[in-house]
């Protein structure tokens, strides 16, 4: 079991009112699953993604990631978890504009203080088919290429879990399709992948789908 989450609660204050972004979410994810979280905006799917990605903390509940209880860790320990156990892929790619593709991919290894960073970054770039673009900066790459760089970066520390937040949202259909194919092939090699999306055809390519509304899981389907 990669993820064991029980009764996750998270509230936000918006002006005077309190919004329950997560209202008692229970979620278990097995290793090697490919899971889609869907729902309209404001349904809490982004919040769930932030919680699962250890970017944010829950108000109450229990979250165990790869056997480790996350609920009580310090922000430094969370940074370490994000570095080693989780790979992020964002809608807007979130590459550092001043670094080239290779340096972007290398960065998590530098933060981890791991050896052979350059060589591993080269391998990761090769794995997403961008060897000839390794020394280009993000603004010299197409959207699809940027997302591939981001995926290479998410894989570089060999994490247990890949979290993708609307990974095809800024891409045309054909490129989006290529990215999803890349995710599928990664999943085939045993990676656990969670994709947050509001597009049903993207969700349809995942074996398991979870629908959220008002901070709760309202439906679950498996293909």
């Amino acid at each position, binding site marked *: 079991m990669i993820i064991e989450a029980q009764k996750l609660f998270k509230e936000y204050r918006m002006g005077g009112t309190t919004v329950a972004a997560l209202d008692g979410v229970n979620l278990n994810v097995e290793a090697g699953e490919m899971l889609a979280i869907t729902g309209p905006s404001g349904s809490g799917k982004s919040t769930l993604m932030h919680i699962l990605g250890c970017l944010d903390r829950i108000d109450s509940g229990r979250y165990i990631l790869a056997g480790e209880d996350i609920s009580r860790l310090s922000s430094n320990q969370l940074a370490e978890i994000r570095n080693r156990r989780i790979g992020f892929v964002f809608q807007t790619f*979130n590459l550092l504009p001043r670094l080239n593709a290779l340096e972007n991919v290398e960065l998590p290894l530098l933060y981890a203080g791991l050896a052979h960073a350059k060589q591993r970054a080269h391998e990761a770039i090769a794995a997403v088919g961008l060897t000839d673009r390794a020394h280009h900066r993000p603004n010299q790459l197409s959207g699809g290429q940027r997302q591939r760089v981001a995926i290479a970066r998410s894989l570089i520390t060999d994490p247990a879990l890949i979290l993708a937040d609307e990974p095809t949202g800024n891409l045309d259909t054909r490129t989006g399709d290529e990215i999803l194919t890349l995710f599928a092939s990664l999943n085939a090699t045993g990676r656990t992948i969670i994709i947050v999306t509001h597009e049903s055809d993207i969700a349809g390519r995942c074996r398991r789908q979870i629908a959220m509304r008002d901070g709760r899981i309202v439906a679950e389907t498996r293909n």
Partner: protein
Amino acid sequence: MLISTTIKVGIRSLWANKMRSFLAMLGIIIGVAAVIAMLAMGAGAKKTVMARIDAMGTNLLAVRPGQTGMRGVASGTSQKLTLEDAEAILADTKGVQRLAPAVTGSVQAKYMNHNSRTSVVGSSVTYLPIRDFTVEKGKAFTETQVEQTARVAILGPVTVDNLFGLNDPLGETVKLNGINFTVIGVLKAKGFDFDDQIIVPYTTAMKQLFGLDYLREIDIQAEEGQNLTEVQDAMTVVLRKRHKLLGNAPDDFNVRNQADMIQAAQDVIRTFTILLGGIASISLLVGGIGIMNIMLVSVTERTREIGIRKAIGAKERTILLQFLMEAVITTGLGGLLGVVAGAGAAKVIAKMSPNFATEIEPFSIILSLSFSAFVGIFFGFYPAWRAARLDPVEALRYE
């Protein structure tokens, strides 16, 4: 993350904003340059003044008539210094090697159609060795010439220039206040204001030139190794006795001790240097505030970058170090450039005015470099801390 990587990242982001980084640095450059230049001027002034005091001779006490009273009201009658006073001091004070009575005044010196206003010192044969003068051309006057009230004069090199130009002055006659004197010697140049004066026998000066029966000054040279203050105290006792001063009556003469002069000059220069350095370091402080300002803007502007870095595993400490490093690189580099600029400024100042020496001490470089590094850490810390404490979710949302 390795420190070398942090430095590389810091330099890279500074380079990405060249203009802004340079302007931020400029405050530090100016501040450090000002500190270096001010301290160099202080050190130069100290060297000049010490050389000036040294050129007066060594182990000197100068006695002059007048009261040293602090209250500003002269009480009792003030006595004059006489030749007998000088003889008594020489005879009765322990530790005195030699002394020279002196009368001074300003005269109009004339040779052919050249005129010059200059000062005349009338003194004994001991004056030249006490005051560390050497005769370069011709010779000094003798005891006999002093006794005979001879009208002979030794001229300073500047006075020679003024009156004779390139002509040989030896054996020529100059008119001092209308009285003819034969030039028998020319002094070797010593620098400062010592080179424009005329030295004549005190007998001639007192009787013929100024019409005085008292002295303006007695220059006393203590024996080598004597404590000047002890000699001064002994001399004061002798002179008080001769002037019949009893009990608490204030001295009717005034002793300047060379050791005290050195001390006083050093104190003044030190105060001055601290003052100038202090003012200069305020500009360094202002530069530091400029750095903080730029850093805060930079942190806000790079909120998203910070969010990304945090998402992929940068710890708070790593982010803090990254921004701190940028600040320290800015001030460190600015400090180095400031040292170069300050040294250049000091050289220019020294070139522009020949009387103003500057000297750059290694200490001042170390001081200003470490101060600027400190400024970087101090003013860079708050922006870096703000960056480190950013919430990753908020930071990633930032547009």
